[in-house]
């Protein structure tokens, strides 16, 4: 855990942060609104204090309540991974700005997030499906998309609150009726 790095982040992104900075093991996690992705990422990449020049990963997350886009960044200025969570995308029409202006290589990762979650990345020139066939309709990694063969689901699964600080408002008390391919 890099405490000094946390302080630096707090100072610089005071206005953009939507929650407290969390640190655990070798990771630092910040949460921002989807609208702030471009200025925050640009600042993290360009400012010599941060110098996050390596995009380690970009992925989508469906918490069952909201959609998120999660960026993992690496920099020589800190020993931590930086996790930037663009939080609070609506599940009906998730939209986030693309980071292909900074890392062209994010294009395929964004295509994957679109393919799996239906997140639209504004500014991506090639937002096609990448794994599923082009005439496919739903988004397989969403939480309301169940496996056809659901035998692996253990009996322990009931309420699946994502994080205790943010309990899903409409979490079903028992396992919901399985709807195959009921994404989108």
């Amino acid at each position, binding site marked *: 855990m890099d405490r000094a790095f946390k302080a630096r982040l707090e100072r610089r992104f005071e206005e953009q942060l939507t929650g407290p900075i969390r640190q655990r093991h070798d990771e630092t996690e910040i949460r921002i609104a989807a609208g702030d992705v471009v200025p925050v990422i640009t600042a993290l990449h360009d400012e010599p204090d941060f110098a996050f020049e390596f995009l*380690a990963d970009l*992925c989508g*997350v469906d918490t069952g309540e909201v959609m998120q886009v999660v960026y*993992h960044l690496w920099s020589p200025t800190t020993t931590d991974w930086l996790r930037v969570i663009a939080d609070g995308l609506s599940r009906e029409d998730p939209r986030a700005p693309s980071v292909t202006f900074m890392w062209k*290589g994010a294009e395929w990762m964004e295509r994957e997030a679109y393919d799996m979650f239906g997140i639209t990345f504004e500014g991506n*020139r090639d937002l096609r499906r990448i*794994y599923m066939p*082009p005439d496919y309709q739903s988004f397989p990694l969403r939480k309301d998309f169940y496996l056809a063969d659901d035998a692996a689901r*253990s009996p322990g*699964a009931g309420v699946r609150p994502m994080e205790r600080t943010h309990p899903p408002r409409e979490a079903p008390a028992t396992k919901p009726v399985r709807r195959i391919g009921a994404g989108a």
Partner: protein
Amino acid sequence: MTTTTPRPDAPGQGRTNLGSDAFAGSPDDPRVQLDRDLGVFEPVPPYPPRTEREAEFYTLRDGEMFLNMGPQHPSTHGVLRVVLKLDGEKVVDLDPVLGYLHRGVEKLCENADYHQAICYLDPLEYVSSLFCEWPGVMAFEKLLDVEVPRRAEYIRVLSAELNRVASHALFLGWMALDLGGLTPILWSFIERDEIVEMLAALTGQRMLFNYFRIGGVNGDLNHEFLSRLGTWMSHATEQIEAGNALLNENEIFVRRMRGLGKIDSKTALRMTMSGPNLRATGVPFDMRRAHPYSIYPELDFDIPTRAEGDCLARYLLRMDEIKQSLRIIDQCLHQMPDGPIMAKLPRLLRPRPGRAYAGIEAPRGQYAVYAMSDGTDQPFRMRIHDPSFLHLQSVGLMMPGHLVADTMAIMASLDPIMGGVDK
């Protein structure tokens, strides 16, 4: 395999012996029907373009044509389809079409418990399976706050570095095979077979080891493994050098590879490349040093780099890495501590809610797993980050201007494994 798009302004284009041009472009065209019956892939998708890039790619200018390569092609390292846009024999642009090997591993992992999820990771990059398991178990250990015993860490590094040598040896053979040379793959399989047998003695499997466990490894070092390893180590360097000499001193190979598929360090970082392909452009970026994990900080090894960023540099760099891996294996054997190989853990794992990210240096670059727990016994979200996926993406930048035959050479030099690309 060649399919041309019927265009009224280019007489002769699209004319074959199979039918008259009265049918050109219509679904009743016997050529189209024949293609459909044979399962031949049309390079142009049967729907209007959906994105800017797709519209740009699937528009032909004067003298250009499409060539469909794959999905079954001996040089695509799996099931990959690449649509090439050609001007004569020069490649103008290309569009890789993925998904033929997609199994939905992330979804499967989210519907399995933590122990079961590990074995789904093996068949991703199937020539270096231990490196696929490793970030998975590391991420879960972070979620569970488990300390891995030191002996287990040493065994992990030892077996993984052996796997790296096997993977790079196979790369050498494949690359030569894609260039038309059959001999090196036979040589490299001698090395690989020996290592694979060794790992089979250790893990019980030749290819998909399923050896790493959350909190340690599955079995301790045994006599057969150590005796095989000792015998192999005594002549490994010699044998690998001999195999290299086949290619390094082959003028046809060297002249063909030099200057091919060049990429500079800035572009490589922008394309989020990592691993040997990034280091071949001169960036000394290696997860083992950049973000140390396991026992790598205690080991003494170098990070080889090359400045050229072409196919030859990528090939030579991997050969340098084999030597460093042998150094690491040697140190592991000498420093191997005694002790337990598994941390004490309950059978049913329920990590407290949270998120964890673990990235390691696999033979192809940064391999990472991002796991989220919601307090149940199954991962809530399991993201697998595969370097081959991103390297395949940058082929499009390296290809323009080169010949059709160089597509295979460039792709082989990036060493993508479609099992990992398609997940």
